[in-house]
């Protein structure tokens, strides 16, 4: 029942997820190694919530931080890459369904993509 086009889409999704998770994990590992190396004495306090609506998670400050070899910014980049992985997967599905001329699923996957992009960029 699964068509050739669906099988091709499945393989592409599989490769995309593997690449995304591997790259994100590598960046987080690199940032965390630097973080532990730079750390002195007591670490940050996780016992109490500070709730800073962190502007540091926007892309510009993250890249700014990386230029100064700020380990937290490198970890943040890895986290952003990880969150982007499923978003890219859904964007790719919109494209694949469009190629297959499957209008219903172009609509359905576009709704999912809109919700994801809303959540990601609303800050």
């Amino acid at each position, binding site marked *: 029942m699964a068509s050739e086009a669906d099988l091709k889409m499945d393989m592409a999704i599989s490769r995309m997820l*593997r690449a995304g998770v591997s790259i994100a994990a590598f960046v987080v590992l690199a940032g965390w190694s630097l973080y532990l190396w730079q750390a002195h004495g007591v670490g940050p306090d996780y016992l109490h919530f500070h709730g800073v609506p962190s502007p540091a998670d926007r892309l510009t400050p993250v890249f700014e931080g990386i230029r100064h070899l700020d380990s937290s910014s490198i970890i943040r980049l890895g986290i952003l890459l990880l969150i982007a992985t499923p978003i890219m997967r*859904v964007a790719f599905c919109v494209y694949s369904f469009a190629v297959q001329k499957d209008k219903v699923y172009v609509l359905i996957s576009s709704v999912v993509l809109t919700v*994801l992009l809303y959540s990601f960029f609303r800050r």
Partner: protein
Amino acid sequence: MIEFSSAVLLTSFFAGLLGALTGLGGGVVIVPALALLFHVDLRYAIGASLISVIATSSGAAVAYVREGFSNVRIGMFLEVATTLGAVGGAYLAARVSTPAIGIIFGVTLLYSAWSSFREPPNETPHPPNALAEKLKLSGDYPADNGRVAYLAQNVPAGFGIMFIAGILSGLLGIGSGAVKVLAMDHAMKLPFKVSTTTSNFMIGVTAAASAGIYLGRGYIAPGLVAPVMLGVLAGSLLGARLLVRIRVPVLRVVFAVVIVALGVEMIYSGATGRL
């Protein structure tokens, strides 16, 4: 600092290992572990767990999608419900008090433990279903005797339960795999293999929908997220490999006891205001 980080890394590794072996996911273990053992604020624990959930779901989905178990169309259709729920849940997380979140978490843990023992329903031949056919909620998956075809049933009920699964995911920072499987194998009557793997495939997208909002709220603490994400990911990858070799039933009993204990402790801590 180094001690704290290595202890968190090790705990996350075991959480990921157990989560993969039982199919419940690492999130349900790591949140109570961080909150109860390390006394991390529940919001940081939930944020770190949510990020690790994206990693493990996407990591495991690599094999499931390639081998043709996960159904991309069914997953995409139900992701409309889970992502909307997840955004709602992430908003709720800021309005519900921490003790109340602890209690909801505890109840979800008890439900997950119970559900891991429930027998999957018998697979019966599926009658035609107009809505499911229109939405192409069908497929086939590899089994011992060739490919087995299936068609979804009770589509609105499944969609509704998925919305609740999304809310829980956004509120508690977990994949809520147990609720997703409930929607797919009990309501929609999908084969067990298809519902578990499609559920896993959906978890990454659902979690990504609340992650953006968590970031904006400062729930994501990089120094904590890094060991949790790397530990849970490594543990769950090892768990997925071990799964083919070791006997799961014994392990399920052990794990269910751990989950029940964590659930009771979360409810107790929440009710006595210690979270």
